[in-house]
């Protein structure tokens, strides 16, 4: 059970059951679809940008507990941040789920993201955890309308 509890931590279960910022956004600056063809996870991420600041972010769609919780936690963390700060969070998150060791400081910096540390034990789930982040990255950095994890 402990391995499972490490993956499905309370934070993840909570955000899966009651995802935050789970809504459509009418006046979004950018809207990007993210798709994981392997398991059919499908989300749309909306961002509202003012200069280089993410003043609002939301998402809708369907997928597994890991991908949905990840999208939800992400939305709470990047709201109000600059694009560069969001990109740095993505970088840290990516290292975390890939199992690249973090120092004490880094863990501290990760905050709520640390709940996804268990994902690194489940290589098949890394794509689930990072789908929303890849989609956000596309929304703030490029002009594609769809990203796929394949």
């Amino acid at each position, binding site marked *: 059970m402990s391995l499972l509890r490490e993956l499905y931590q309370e934070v993840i279960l909570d955000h899966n059951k009651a995802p935050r910022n789970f809504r459509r956004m009418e006046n979004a600056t950018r809207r990007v679809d993210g798709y994981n063809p392997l398991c059919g*996870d499908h989300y749309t991420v909306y961002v509202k940008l003012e200069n280089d600041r993410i003043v609002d972010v939301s998402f809708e769609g369907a997928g597994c507990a890991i991908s949905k919780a990840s999208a939800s936690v992400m939305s709470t963390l990047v709201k109000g941040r600059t694009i560069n700060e969001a990109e740095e969070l993505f970088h840290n998150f990516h290292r975390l789920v890939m199992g690249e060791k973090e120092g004490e400081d880094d863990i501290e910096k990760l905050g709520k993201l640390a709940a996804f540390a268990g994902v690194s034990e489940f290589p098949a789930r890394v794509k689930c955890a990072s789908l929303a982040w890849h989609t956000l990255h596309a929304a703030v950095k490029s002009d594609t309308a769809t990203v796929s994890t394949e």
Partner: protein
Amino acid sequence: MTTEPATVAAPSFHDILRIAGCRHHFPLLRQLVNGKPLVYFDNAATSQKPQVVIDAMVKYYETENSNIHRGVHYLSERATQAYERVRAKVKAFVNAEDQREIIFVRGTTEAINLVAHSFGKIHVHPGDEILVSAMEHHSNIVPWQILCEERDATLKVIPMNDRGELLMDEYERLLSDRTRIVAVTHVSNALGTINPVKDIVAKAHARGIPVLVDGAQAVPHMHVDVRDLDCDFYAFSAHKMFGPTGVGILYGKRRWLEAMPPYQGGGDMIKSVTFEKTIYNDLPYKFEAGTPNIGGGIGLGAAIDYLHELDLGGVQQLEHDLLAYATEKILTIPGVRIIGTAAQKAAVLSFTMEGIHPHDIGTILDVEGVAIRTGHHCAQPVMQFFGVPATARASFAFYNTKEEVDAFIKALHKVIEVLG
């Protein structure tokens, strides 16, 4: 003569016990996964291999390995004979009329691509129609789509009902003067449905239309008699019938195969080559360009011998009992919906759990040592039809046990405990 399950003599209790006892022939099954005894319920993706198949391949590489149809030396002769003996075994296994009707390919996918390409080249023209069913694996959809695009033809789809059974009246209505070929699966990998292929073939033949049957999920579970079915093409993969990966079979009636142009060019498929003109080899070699998977072919031969001794009638009965047991047990779990409830079903149990994504089910089961498949099962149109992004699928083989089903059900309760 018929292959309908109802008319096959019921296997005795003794036979069933004997078959169940064959589990120990599969070395891979004796392992722990995450500290739990492995429960392998992903047989529709690929089956495990008995020791005799592994041994036959090792022995081939240790004592006979050589290229075939090419050398005059001792080893080449032996390898050629061994490989051609497998062709004879396959012929008997599916009851083909003639050994030349058995083409070695890489698997079901390549077999279907071969027919789409070579048959399509001479028989499919602009405005023509190709008929597939709503429950096909991508490998029996995409090759036909490519052909339709190239030839300006149209792909038509036989619909199904919400149990996952083909609508035979609709099927008959869809057969038209423009239909050039019907391509249907014998057993659905996503739903378990056993299609009435004999009837499907008869109805197409009444209008002079040939039929390709995708037998990937049928051959490991039941007697297949291509002459009784009267199908024109039958495709299957060794790796789903306890043989190795990388080898499969296309059966085709000689009169079609003779007229079809080659699929690929290269060695073995020619009689003579000059820069001006090449004369193609006779059947079956015309369709077998290049050095084939000889070791894999030897493994397939051993798998056929193994299935012969096992007795597929008994296998079918045993798997039927397992499926019935698992179906009854899983329906006691709240929120479970079975996808695919056809009256005629093979040992496939596709399901969803309310509010829980199949991917999460798969991960939790894996931690409990239970291997199932989750996702769209290479049948995205089936998922769309049932309005689900994916399903969880347990698929059984004769070596699975009721105790394993119990472990599976227990693991599903754990899923609810963790995520419910």
